[in-house]
C-alpha cells in the first residue's frame, strides 16, 4: 500500500540545508498496524504527514497504492483524503462550532453520502464509542478522552483504508489511552491499515510492527514479539 524509497525531507535556508528525514526506505502493506517511535524531533510527525500527503518529500520516491504521489494533483489528493485516509490528531482538532454529531457527520458530507445512510453511519459510530448521549454537545463540553473518541469516530466513519494517528493518546490519561488503543486494534483486525506515532512502549504493543526513527533515519524496524493479549 505504501512504498517509500530513499526519501528525504529537508528545509533550506540561505546557507544550510537541514535534513529532517534522510534516506527513508519503508514498505507498509495493506492490513498492517505500524507504530513509529523515536525521540522528540526525530521526524515522526513529518514522516506521518508525508505519508498522509499533507506534506511533500524533498527527494526520493513515494508510491501510494502503486501510484507515485508527486504526480497526484490537488484535486485527486482531496479525493484520496476523502475516501482512503483518516487522520487522528494529538490535539483532537474537532471543529469547535459543530456538535459531536455534526463533527462525525462532516466527512460523510464530503463523501457525498445521502441522508438516511449517513444518519445510520453516524449513529453506528455513536453507538460503538458509547457517546450517543453526547451527540448534541459541543467539543468544549467534553473531556479530552471523549474528544479523542469523537476524533477517532470522525476519522473512521468514512471507512478509510488507512488510518494515521499522530500521538493520539499524547494528551490522554493511560486509562483513556487504552480505550483508544483497543479500538485501533479492533479496527486493524477488521482490515484497516493503521500507522500511529507514540512515545508509549505499552501502546506500541497493540501494533504488529515498530519502526524506530532517530535523527530522521530508520534505526530499527521490528515485528512485535507476541500478541499482548
Amino acid at each position: 500500500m505504501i512504498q517509500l524509497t530513499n526519501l528525504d525531507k529537508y528545509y533550506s535556508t540561505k546557507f544550510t540545508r537541514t535534513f529532517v528525514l534522510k534516506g527513508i526506505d519503508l514498505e507498509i502493506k495493506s492490513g498492517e498496524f505500524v507504530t513509529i517511535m523515536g525521540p522528540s524531533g526525530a521526524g515522526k510527525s513529518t514522516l506521518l504527514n508525508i505519508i498522509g500527503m499533507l506534506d511533500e518529500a524533498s527527494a526520493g520516491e513515494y508510491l501510494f497504492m502503486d501510484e507515485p504521489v508527486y504526480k497526484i494533483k490537488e484535486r485527486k489528493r482531496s479525493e484520496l483524503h476523502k475516501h482512503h485516509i483518516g487522520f487522528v490528531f494529538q490535539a483532537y482538532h474537532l471543529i469547535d462550532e459543530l456538535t459531536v454529531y455534526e463533527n462525525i457527520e462532516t466527512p460523510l458530507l464530503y463523501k457525498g453520502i445521502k441522508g438516511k445512510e449517513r444518519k445510520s453511519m453516524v449513529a453506528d459510530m455513536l453507538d460503538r464509542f458509547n457517546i450517543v448521549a453526547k451527540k448534541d454537545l459541543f467539543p468544549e463540553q467534553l473531556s479530552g478522552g471523549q474528544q479523542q473518541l469523537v476524533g477517532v469516530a470522525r476519522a473512521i466513519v468514512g471507512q478509510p483504508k488507512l488510518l494515521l494517528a499522530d500521538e493520539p493518546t499524547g494528551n490522554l490519561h493511560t486509562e483513556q489511552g487504552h480505550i483508544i488503543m483497543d479500538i485501533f486494534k479492533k479496527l486493524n483486525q477488521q482490515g484497516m491499515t493503521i500507522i500511529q506515532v507514540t512515545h508509549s512502549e505499552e501502546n506500541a504493543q497493540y501494533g504488529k510492527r515498530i519502526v524506530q526513527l532517530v535523527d530522521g533515519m530508520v534505526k530499527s524496524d521490528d515485528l512485535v514479539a507476541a500478541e499482548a493479549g
Partner: protein
Amino acid sequence: MLRNYIIISWRNLLKNKSYSSINILGLALGIGGACLVFLLVLFETGFDKQHPDADRIYRVVLENNYYGKTYSQAIPYPVPESLRGDFDQFEAISIVDTNEDNTVITVQQGNQIERFKEEKGIAFVDPEFFEIFHYKWLSGDPKQALIEQRSVVISETLALKYFGDADPVGKMLNFHNRYDLKVTGVVEDHPKQTDIPFNMLISMNLGKEQKRGWDGWDASSGRVHCYLKLKPGIEVASINAQLEEYFGQHHHEEYAQSIIMFLQPLKDLHFDNRFDNFNNRTVSERTLWAMGLVGLSLLLTSCINFININTVLATNRSKEIGVRKVMGSARVQLILQFMTETLIITLISIVGAITLAKLGLVKMESLLGYSFGLELFDAMTLVGFLFILIVVVCLLAGLYPAFLISGFNPLEAIKKTGITLKSPGGFSLRSSLVVTQLVISQILVICTLVVASQLKYFIEAPLGLDREAVVEFPLPVKGKDKVEQITNQLQQSTAIRSISFSNTGAISNGGWGGSFEYDNGREVVDESTAVKYVDQNFIDTYGVQLAAGENLINSDSATMFLVNEAFVKSMGLNDNDQAIGEYVKFWGVEAPVVGVLKDFNTSSLHNPIKACIFLTGPNSFFMGAVKLNPTNIEQALAEIQEVWTTVYPNHIFEYQFLDETIERFYREEQKLSKLVKLFVSLAIVIGAMGLFGLVSFVARRRTKEVGVRKVLGASAASVVLLLSRHFVLLTLVAFLIAAPVSYYVMQSWLSNFSFQIDLGVWVFIAGFAASVLIVTLTIGYQTVRSALANPVDSLRYE
C-alpha cells in the same frame, strides 16, 4: 452539506458578535445607501415613460443669439397654429398654455354651490394634445374630448372632489368666475414622474371674447410651450433645418439669423437645464452620474470592510479549514462554504438595508423637496437591482476572502493558532484596501468641502448691490399708469425707504438683450449688451454705486443712458469718465451716457458680469422693488399688498425678498450639496466602522507584544504610536492619491461657474486633517485601551 455550511456560518456569526455586527451594519449601510442612490436615479430617469412613441414627441424651443446665447422654451401664442399650417410631417401638435394658476373653480350641484381653489395643474391645450400624450381614459373619448368649445378633461381626483361619485361627463364647472366649462372626459391621475403634470386640461377653444394670449410674435411666455409628435419615419434633423429661420421669417427679418427654432426631444425635458419645464426642475445627467459614483463608493467601502474583517476573522478559522481539508474537502467546497457565509450575511444586511433605505428615503425626499412616491418594493426593477446587488456584493466581498482562506496549507492551518496573512515585504492587500477606503472618504470629504464653500460663496459673495430688506413683486399688467398709482400710494409710507420699477429687477437669470453702436474715434463698435429698463430710484433701492457721472431722470422714453463699467470697456474706453457725455445708439435711440454704474452682478454667479445698458421706459416695467425700513418689515409688506391689490384687483399678490431670490439661483447646487453631505457621512461612518474592527483585531493580536514592551518600560504614548503609526501612514498614502483626484474633479466642477472660489490648499489640508482625525478617533479607543492595560493581565493569557 448546505445545511452544514449554514449551521456553521450562523454559529460563527453568533460567536463573533461584534465583528458580525460591523460586517452586517456596514453592508446594510452601504447597500442601503446604494439603494437610495439607485432610487434617486431610477426616479429621475423614469420621467414621461408612459407615452407610447415617446421618441417621436418633441417640444418646440428657441435658441436666442441676439444677446449672448440664451435658450428658451417660451414661444409666442401663434406658433403652434402657424406650424400646424406649414408642416404636414406632424402627426399632432398642441399648444400647452399654463398661464393660469391659483384659480377658483365653482361647481353647482342642485342649489348647492361649492368653490375649490386650484393652485396648479391647469393647462389650456389643443384637442390634439391627447394624440401626443398618453392618458388613461376613465370616461370620455380622447379624440373628441376637447373639440367642443369650452370643454374640459379632468383627473380622477378632481372628478371625485368636484362631483363625488356621480359621473362627471356632461357636468359643468365654472372657471375663475369667467366662463363655464363642460366636462367631456375623465382621465387617471398623472404619474409622479412626468413633466406634463396636469389635472385639468381645458380646450384652447374658448370663444372669441375669451381668447387666450395674443396674436403677435413679439412676446412670449415661459409657461406657454408647444409640443408635437412627428409622423413615423420623419427625421428630426430635416425638420430642424426647416425650423432654423422660421421664427425670423414670421416675426422680423432681423431675427432670422439670431433666433433659431428647433425641436427638443421629450426625453431631454427632464435633464436639459437650458430650458425650464412645468415642474420647474431639471436635473443634469452629470449630477446623476456623480450620485451614481457616490453610491458605488458606498458599496465599495462596505465591501472593503467586509473583506478586511473576514480575512482577519479567517485567521481564527484556520484550524477548521485545515481539518476540513484533511477530511477531503476540495478547495471549491471551501470556497462555496465561505461564499454561503457571505451570502447569509449579505441577505441579513439586505433586510437591514431596506429598513435603512426606507428611513433614508424620507430624509432624502425632505432634502430634495419632492417626493418619489415609489414604494420601495413597488418596482420590480428594485427587486432586480437588489438581486444584482446581492450577486455583486457576494462576489466583491466574499470571493477574495474565500479564495484566500481555502488556499491555506492544511498542515500550517492546523498547526498554528493563526495564519499570518501579511504578504512578505511590500504593501499588503489589506493595506491597499484600507488605503482605497481612505481615498474614497478623503475625496468625498474634500469635494463636500469645496461644494459647500462654493455654495457659501454663491450666497454671500458681494454682488455690488444691497440685497438686505429688498422686496420684489411682479406687475401682472404693464402700464405707466399702474406704476404711478403704486408709487404715489406707497411713497408716503414710513415703512418704505424707496421704491423702484424695472423690467427684470437688478439681478435675474434670463434677461433682455440687444446690441449697441458706438464710434470711439478709432472704430465703430457694434457689441451686444444686456438691457435693463429702470427708473431713477433703481440705484437707491438696490444699493448700486454710481462710479461716474449722474443718475437717470425719469421720463416716458429714453433720452439718456446709464451703463456699467463692463459696458464702458466694450465701448473700447479705458476710463469711466471718458464715457460720460458720449453718444451711444441703442434700439434706434441715440442718446448720451450720463452715468456709469459700478459693476454689479446682473445674473447669478454662474455667469460673468456682462455689459449692461440702463434706460427709462415705464411701459416696459414688469417688476417692482421696495427697499424696506428693516424695523418695520411686517407693516411694509401689508401696505404693499394692500396697494398692489387695489391696483390689480383681479390678481394675487406675490412677493419675494431679494436675498431669497438670489439664494434660489443656487437651488440645484444646494440640493446637491445636502444630498452629497448625507451620503458622505454615510461613507465615513462605514469606513470608520471597518477600521475600528480592523484595529481592534490588530490590538488584540498584539496584546502580548504590547504587554512585553510595557514590562520592558515602554510608555503608554509610545504604545499608542506603535499601534497607530501604520494607519496614520496609510492615511498619508491615501491623501497622496485623493488630493490630485479631487483637485481635478473639483476644478472641472468649478469651471461651470464664472465666479468661483479658489481651490485653496486649506480644503485639502482640512480633508486630510478630517481623515486623520477620523482614523485617530476610530483607532484611539483600542490603542489607548491596550496602552493603558496592565501588562501582567495580558501576559497571563499566554
